[in-house]
């Protein structure tokens, strides 16, 4: 809707091999991102059918500030999650938002299933292209081929799935431009279920800045650019990046390790942000439209044959990956963590879920819930080779056990036992914090079961009064509905205060009041819960596994009773909202 008064939705039907654009003025009030994608999901979802039924929609949306204001870099995807079997929402950076912006599309709705594997090329229209020869290829290889077979270098973005998506692993992700991901909740499986290997978007349209906004736009852009680059508000993301958290979290007894049997490790320095920076960091890259460059690329040189035969792995790393594929599995060196990240990337899996699933599998194996006949490798915390093999087994559904692992930790524990140490919250595998009630309850009740729904881990670190936690979690998610609808990277949340958000909107010709934004946040929250209700979801279903109450947090040992009471308190707040 940039520089125009409607939302341009591109509808693609893979079954009929048809597409159409619809200019929808009625969607303007949903702004973009979360709001717009949730609305389009609500319109198109089929609650009575399976999440992986061809008729289900897969939606991608950008917002009015995307690419044209600094650090507004993300695209929001919504779908019926095959992982949690409820509302699915996942975000990714890279260049996809920029490409959509200048392909003139605010949102894409993909439905149906191709008769054979295909990829989509979206430029001025949509081409349905054969991808049979790409089926089975890694994420990286597919990307390299797409760069050779499509035009638009420099203004192009490609998203693609790996084997795990093709094989419908419920936590398969979608890779965006090699280093970013729609990681969580199984968007990759949704794409795979549609026989869709990739989508390439070319963004080469001209969009004139309206005459009356020329001066204003530049002024606001400069102001925000200055806040991004010349203040400390985003410094941590640029320097060591999110791995700066490893040592502080460890010191706080909040770093989930060894399948959350521990909250602190004695090798934190060996896998810290500092260690990665010193030994492996070779460069940083950025999403299109962000001068920060938080994407840290780590390198490992590996001898693949005698006679000085080397290959080099270049992968991006972040705190969540160091946790999930490092500390959670007891992996003690940066090189080994990067090697494990590399195989997870190739297969196109969600890194967090994969690590947490493997953590559960290790404990289950050690405690005799599963046998070597099933696991095929003798899982042992700290031994990376087993995990590298297991990742491939999950992705290819090697046997019944790996098929079960490929449906997540809730499912696996249901089949083999060990649900008390299956580290999920609300059905999605936990993230890299064990800080207190804010994190445990916030993650469990968050509408997409992500640590970023409401930043509960951050609330815990401010040492709040226990009775205030639920309200803080609730308020934070409302506030983030605004950011993720616009779609501002959450790393820039301190840059984009309410005042700045209003100014940024004004800079692109959208005049809203603070009160209207507050109401908007509530409306979007309601919309998300309407969808959840349609899918039969209830906050009553939340049962937090015992492990979270056995291992101490920054805020002491948590009580299961209290945590579940907090969930009830949150449910009451949502009910009040729904009745407003």
């Amino acid at each position, binding site marked *: 809707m940039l520089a125009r008064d409607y939302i341009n939705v591109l509808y693609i039907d893979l079954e009929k091999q048809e597409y159409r654009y619809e200019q929808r003025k009625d969607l303007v009030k949903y702004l973009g991102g979360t709001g717009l994608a949730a609305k389009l999901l609500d319109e198109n979802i089929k609650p009575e059918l399976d999440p992986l039924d061809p008729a289900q929609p897969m939606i991608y949306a950008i917002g009015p500030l995307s690419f044209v204001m600094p650090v507004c870099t993300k695209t929001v995807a919504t779908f019926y999650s095959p992982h949690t079997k409820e509302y699915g929402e996942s975000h990714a950076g890279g260049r996809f938002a920029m490409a959509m*912006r200048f392909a003139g599309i605010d949102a894409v709705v993909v439905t149906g299933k191709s008769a054979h594997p295909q990829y989509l090329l979206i430029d001025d229209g949509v081409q349905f292209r054969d991808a049979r020869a790409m089926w089975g290829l890694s994420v990286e290889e597919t990307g390299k081929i797409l760069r050779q077979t499509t035009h638009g270098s420099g203004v192009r973005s490609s998203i693609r799935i790996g084997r795990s998506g093709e094989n419908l692993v419920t936590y398969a992700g979608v890779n965006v431009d090699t280093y970013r991901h729609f990681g969580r909740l199984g968007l990759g499986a949704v794409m795979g279920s549609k026989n869709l290997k990739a989508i390439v978007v070319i963004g080469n349209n001209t969009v004139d800045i309206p005459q009356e906004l020329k001066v204003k736009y530049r002024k606001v852009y400069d102001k925000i*650019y200055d806040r991004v680059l010349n203040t400390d508000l985003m410094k941590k993301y640029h320097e060591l990046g999110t791995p700066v958290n490893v040592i502080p979290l460890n010191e706080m007894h909040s770093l989930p390790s060894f399948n959350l049997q521990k909250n602190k490790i004695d090798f934190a320095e060996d896998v810290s942000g500092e260690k990665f920076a010193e030994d492996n960091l070779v460069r940083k*890259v*950025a999403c299109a*439209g962000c*001068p920060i460059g938080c994407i840290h690329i780590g390198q490992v040189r590996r001898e693949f044959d005698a006679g000085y035969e080397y290959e080099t792995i270049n992968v991006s790393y972040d705190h969540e990956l160091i946790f999930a594929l490092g500390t959670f599995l007891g992996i003690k060196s940066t090189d080994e963590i990067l090697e494990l990240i590399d195989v997870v990337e190739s297969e196109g899996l969600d890194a967090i879920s994969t690590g947490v699933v493997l953590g559960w599998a290790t404990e289950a194996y050690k405690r005799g819930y599963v046998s070597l006949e099933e696991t095929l490798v003798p899982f042992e915390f700290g031994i990376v080779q087993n995990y590298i093999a297991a990742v491939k087994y999950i992705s290819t559904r090697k046997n019944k056990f790996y098929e079960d692992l490929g449906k997540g930790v809730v499912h696996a524990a249901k089949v083999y036992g060990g649900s008390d140490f299956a580290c999920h919250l609300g059905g999605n595998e936990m993230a890299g914090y064990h800080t207190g009630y804010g994190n445990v309850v916030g993650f469990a009740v968050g509408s997409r079961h992500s640590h970023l729904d409401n930043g509960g881990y951050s609330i815990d670190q401010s040492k709040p009064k226990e009775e205030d936690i639920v309200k803080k979690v609730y308020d934070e998610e409302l506030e983030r509905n605004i950011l993720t609808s616009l779609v501002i990277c959450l790393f820039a949340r301190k840059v984009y205060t309410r005042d700045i958000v209003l100014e940024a909107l004004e800079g692109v010709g959208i005049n809203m009041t603070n009160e209207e934004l507050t109401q908007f946040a509530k409306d979007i929250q309601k919309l998300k819960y309407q969808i959840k209700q349609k899918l039969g979801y209830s906050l009553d279903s939340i049962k937090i596994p015992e492990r979270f109450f056995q291992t101490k947090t920054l805020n002491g040992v948590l009580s299961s009773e209290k945590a579940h009471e907090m969930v009830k308190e949150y449910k009451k707040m949502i009910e009040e909202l729904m009745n407003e």
Partner: protein
Amino acid sequence: MAKVLKVADRRRCIGCLSCRQACARLRGEYSIANSAIEVKTSGGYTGEFVINICRGCEEPACMEACKFGALTKRTGGGVVFHKDKCTKCGACGVACAVNAIRFDEEGYPIICTHCGYCTKYCPHRCITTKEVL
């Protein structure tokens, strides 16, 4: 004092495209497709970035190729574009050995004026202006 745009250190580029945005913004557009500076990956994000800019030639091949007088010599290097004389034949783009001339939607060449506005937005000082006279 005339200035020309220079690539100071290509390897420091993070691909944020702030420079391309800046150039487009100055030209009254949001889209980087209409920027005189081009930054793109070579071999995807795993490869290095390429920065294509007008190199400010003293003997501009693009100008020699233009048979209509739409490009004239710029003091300090590079060329000045005269839109009224341009026939949109595209010969300038073909003649440029460093691939620095792109064309807008109407078919006119996008010619760098060496104003240096883009350099203000580079977070890593990859591009800069140099005084030449």
